[in-house]
């Protein structure tokens, strides 16, 4: 058995790089301050380090040991190109078991990290209370280390069916349990989240609806543009030039440019104002976001349409399909995977860019980000940024699945 098979158990054949990176980050998390205990949101307080929370420190040490053993085993296996289980201690970290140890330890450290504030406060010496525990540099290092360790040992496809989706689910449920049992109560981003209350959910809904509606309109316009472009008509070339030009304008500048335009429009046509269109707010944000999302959809859609087998198109015409029938029954179905790939880029990009829309009063998660930056309240920035990251991640995953399904349907080999 060769090296390739030995590596099969590891994510996308990353080699030991992820493993080393995880180990280094784990090590660094001992040095940097893990938490900061603060009297309130803004004032500075006392730093706490990893070894002050002994259960967490023990968990991290275990994770590092498992990681180091796995790395050692993997190096040995790479050198010897054999999968023979090593005897004794090394055998414990054999190809099949070691990744589970690493992933388990990573999960434990990550959850322990979130329980950290509660553990820290429980052993706090009596004195002036510092009720807010903010994440410090070590917190992020440790979280990244755990994630890298998980990624490194996660197989491209979990061999045990019960474990498919287990780790993310376990982490989410663990976090939920921490929140429900009150163990997260002193963790400052969570405190901020609770303090915001309804506002958080309202802005999240606004973010999703603004990004979603821009994306859907861009999908329609981009598809139409892709058809025009693939026919290399004048209209198509104009569209493509316009979309490229828009892509080159920084998003903030585009919002700014739209301000006077929209304001003038609303002034000229009062009925526009009556349906909520003005220089600031959701309308210009929607327009700008749509304009941004069109280009990736249009370009990859047009590429997909051009790739459609000319023989299939010729016979379709020769068998008596009209232009629209040809488009709907042959060209678009065959171009769908490419179109979906463009849509994936566009959706992820739109979710991110929507953040900036808060600057022109459109709301969304950007509200927390910019308010937080303005008030030097990192907790507020964090509760704005984390949902955006999760949304982008979910959108990317979802679109990738859609893309794969469409590729299968269009019978194109998945790249």
């Amino acid at each position, binding site marked *: 058995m060769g090296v390739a098979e030995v590596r099969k158990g590891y994510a996308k054949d990353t080699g030991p790089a992820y493993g080393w990176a995880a180990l280094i980050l784990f090590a660094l998390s001992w040095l940097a301050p893990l938490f900061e205990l603060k009297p309130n949101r803004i004032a500075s307080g006392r730093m706490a380090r990893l070894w002050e929370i002994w259960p967490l420190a023990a968990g991290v040490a275990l994770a590092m040991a498992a990681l180091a053993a796995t790395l050692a085993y993997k190096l040995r296996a790479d050198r010897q190109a054999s999968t023979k289980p090593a005897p004794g201690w090394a055998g414990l970290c054999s190809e099949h078991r070691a990744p589970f140890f690493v992933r388990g330890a990573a999960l434990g450290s990550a959850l322990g990290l979130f329980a950290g504030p509660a553990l820290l406060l429980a052993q706090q010496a009596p004195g002036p209370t510092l009720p807010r525990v903010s994440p410090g540099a070590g917190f992020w290092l440790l979280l990244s280390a755990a994630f890298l360790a998980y990624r490194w040992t996660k197989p491209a496809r979990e061999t045990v069916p019960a474990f498919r989706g287990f780790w993310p689910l376990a982490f989410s449920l663990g976090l939920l349990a921490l929140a429900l049992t009150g163990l997260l109560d002193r963790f400052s981003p969570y405190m901020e989240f609770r303090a915001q209350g309804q506002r958080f959910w309202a802005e999240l809904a606004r973010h999703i609806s603004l990004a979603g509606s821009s994306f859907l309109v861009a999908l329609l316009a981009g598809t139409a543009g892709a058809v025009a472009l693939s026919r290399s008509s004048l209209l198509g070339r104009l569209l493509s030039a316009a979309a490229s030009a828009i892509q080159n304008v920084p998003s903030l500048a585009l919002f700014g440019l739209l301000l006077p335009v929209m304001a003038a429009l609303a002034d000229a046509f009062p009925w526009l104002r009556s349906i909520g269109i003005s220089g600031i707010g959701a309308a210009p944000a929607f327009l700008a976001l749509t304009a941004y999302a069109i280009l990736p959809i249009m370009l990859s859609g047009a590429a997909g349409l051009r790739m459609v087998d000319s023989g*299939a198109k010729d*016979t379709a015409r*020769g*068998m*008596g399909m009209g232009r629209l029938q040809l488009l709907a029954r042959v060209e678009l*179905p*065959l171009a769908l995977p490419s179109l979906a790939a463009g849509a994936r880029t566009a959706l992820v990009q739109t979710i991110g860019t929507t953040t900036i829309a808060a600057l022109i009063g459109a709301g969304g998660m950007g509200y927390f980000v910019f308010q937080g930056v303005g008030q030097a309240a990192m907790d507020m920035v964090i509760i704005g940024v984390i949902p955006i990251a999760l949304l982008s991640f979910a959108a990317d995953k979802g679109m990738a699945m859609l893309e794969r399904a469409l590729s299968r*349907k269009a019978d194109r080999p998945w790249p």
Partner: protein
Amino acid sequence: MALIEYRGISKRYGDAWALKNIDLDIERGTLTALIGPSGSGKTTCLRMLNRLVEPDEGSIRYDGRTLRSFKPEALRRGMGYVIQNVGLFPHLTVLENICTVPRLLGTPKARAARRADELLALVGLDPALYRGRRPRELSGGEAQRVGVARALAADPPLLLMDEPFGAVDPLQRGRLQEAFLRIQREIKKTVLLVTHDLDEAVRLADTIVLMRAGTIVQRASPATLLAEPADDFVRDFVGEDRSLKRLARVSLGSVAATAPAVALGETAPAAAEGCDGPAQYWVLDGAGKPIGRARPGQRGTLSPTPLPLLSAGASLKEALAAMLEDGHSVIGVLDESERLIGEIAIGDIISSSADAVESSSGGRQ
């Protein structure tokens, strides 16, 4: 009246003439092959019929009506269309591919599907096995068969075929041609076939139209084209081996002689004194399938080596090739259920070739 009449057709692409003043009649129920070097205008000629290309000058009448009076889509749905790359829709199953035109014409799904199954059987593919496959799961030959089935789906009176067997290997091509000849004998469509393979044209066509640089050089039956080339260009195109090509037109079934045969275990009769008996006997099993050979006076036994056998649809040319290849002087001819129906000897090939020359030169007088 001919089904299709080209009158004074010209077509120019920029400065180059694709077609120059073409007159051509295509008779109902016949297979006309357009042949010529690349750029001779044969594909343009074909694509004008379903109006994928419009002529610059001249007019085409189809079934007595000028082609321009048809709506292009309606016209195309009434003509089967097969091209070299097959052009099967990769996202649809074999069944959905075949049902394309019937569905465009509004045929109910169930009826179209039944028809598709019949057609799959007709082109020699098991419907149960192939119905649900994707084009990617077909071999080149299978894809071509599906392409032909798809073209026949709406039972069009006219089939347009642009190098339909061009993209498969020679062995497959021979089989496809044989299958197509069998189908054509059954359904008697009017077929316009574009090919650059003279052997294919000679084998399949009733009429061959040889084109060169947008003009028709000769329009004749295959036998006449081979025997009497109109000019040096045709002579060159036909080549030195034209008598060999003529053999491609003759199917074994039409010239096979009765084959002497004995049952397994029986003794082949010895030749009578001074008489020329058969040099060998075929040994048949109970179903009439050949399983061995025996010399006169010998007992019929199972042959340890494969027997030289060809189907009745194969041509004399294939038989000759097989003889030269393996050094056999006699080849058994089989019907569709692989029973022996006759044999062909090398002498038969030579005499039938002589007949063909005689009959075509007889036609000249």
